[in-house]
């Protein structure tokens, strides 16, 4: 599998993302600077990592979403190529319009940096096939704007089509207000597009892939991608 990790000014999780791909798949991703207008030949997966692109000025992810490389990412997605947006990457991918909705300020107004539990609600996607339905995994989060919002029609469509892949939950898989760190509608932590080749999620699976990091619950996502790409 050939992967690329996009790099924007202000992004700070690109090396974590690159390491996760390398550790799990054995292949080092290509780092692609935002001023490029084409992705390298033969890329299967484009990862949009976390951080604070352009200081999150204007809106989180807004300026990065208008970078020169973005048209190439859109074409990649249209061809059926995989796109993984994590944290700021999820915000960027929604700003591009590859995923519906938007990420708003956390309901608590606080930046939240901790480990949460996620329930895998759809293990049939290219990103989650290494997990089982309803499996509860641990995953770190670190964001101030992860409060998923979509208008009622969009939300109903996402739920109706089973496109909510990850939901915040407690250690037993129960989705409660207390287990939701940011106030996301329906406790949404990650969604896929209609075609299933673009995933956006606020938590950081790339930060839980080796024992040194305290666990390996995030590995499954990269293993899933390695199976299909």
């Amino acid at each position: 599998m050939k992967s690329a990790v996009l790099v924007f000014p202000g992004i700070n999780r690109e090396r974590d993302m690159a390491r996760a791909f390398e550790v799990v798949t054995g292949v080092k991703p290509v780092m692609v600077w935002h001023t490029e207008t084409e992705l390298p030949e033969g890329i299967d997966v484009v990862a949009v990592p976390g951080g604070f692109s352009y200081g999150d000025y204007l809106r989180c992810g807004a300026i990065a979403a208008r970078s020169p490389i973005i048209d190439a990412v859109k074409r990649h997605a249209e061809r059926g190529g995989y796109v993984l947006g994590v944290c700021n990457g999820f915000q960027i991918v929604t700003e591009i319009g590859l995923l519906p909705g938007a990420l708003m300020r956390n309901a608590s107004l606080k930046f939240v940096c901790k480990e949460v539990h996620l329930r895998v609600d759809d293990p049939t996607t290219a990103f989650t096939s290494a997990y089982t339905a309803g499996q509860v995994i641990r995953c770190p989060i670190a964001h101030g704007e992860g409060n998923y919002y979509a208008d009622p029609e969009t939300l109903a469509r996402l739920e109706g089509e089973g496109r909510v892949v990850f939901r915040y939950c407690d250690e037993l898989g129960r989705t409660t207000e207390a287990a939701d760190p940011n106030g996301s509608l329906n406790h949404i932590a990650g969604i896929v597009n209609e075609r299933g080749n673009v995933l956006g999620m606020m938590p950081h699976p790339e930060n839980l892939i080796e024992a040194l990091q305290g666990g390996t619950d995030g590995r499954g996502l990269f293993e899933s991608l390695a199976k299909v790409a």
Partner: protein
Amino acid sequence: MKARVTVTLKNGVLDPQGKAIQGALKSLGFAGVDDVRQGKLIELDLATSDRAAAEAEVTAMCEKLLANTVIENYRIELV
């Protein structure tokens, strides 16, 4: 010519910052504030003096970058 763009959250979109301001006003003794919505104001200094051209240009800027029309409305004033 100057343009003033006001970006506000759409009705129905939760505004935690507005809620915090409302709470702060209440704690300062300002009673009777039923709701607070926070937005942003962007002032642009434009080279053109043609109103129609400016309006079209700023509308394009709003659609392309200044507002996220999934969650925000925008209003343009030329001054």
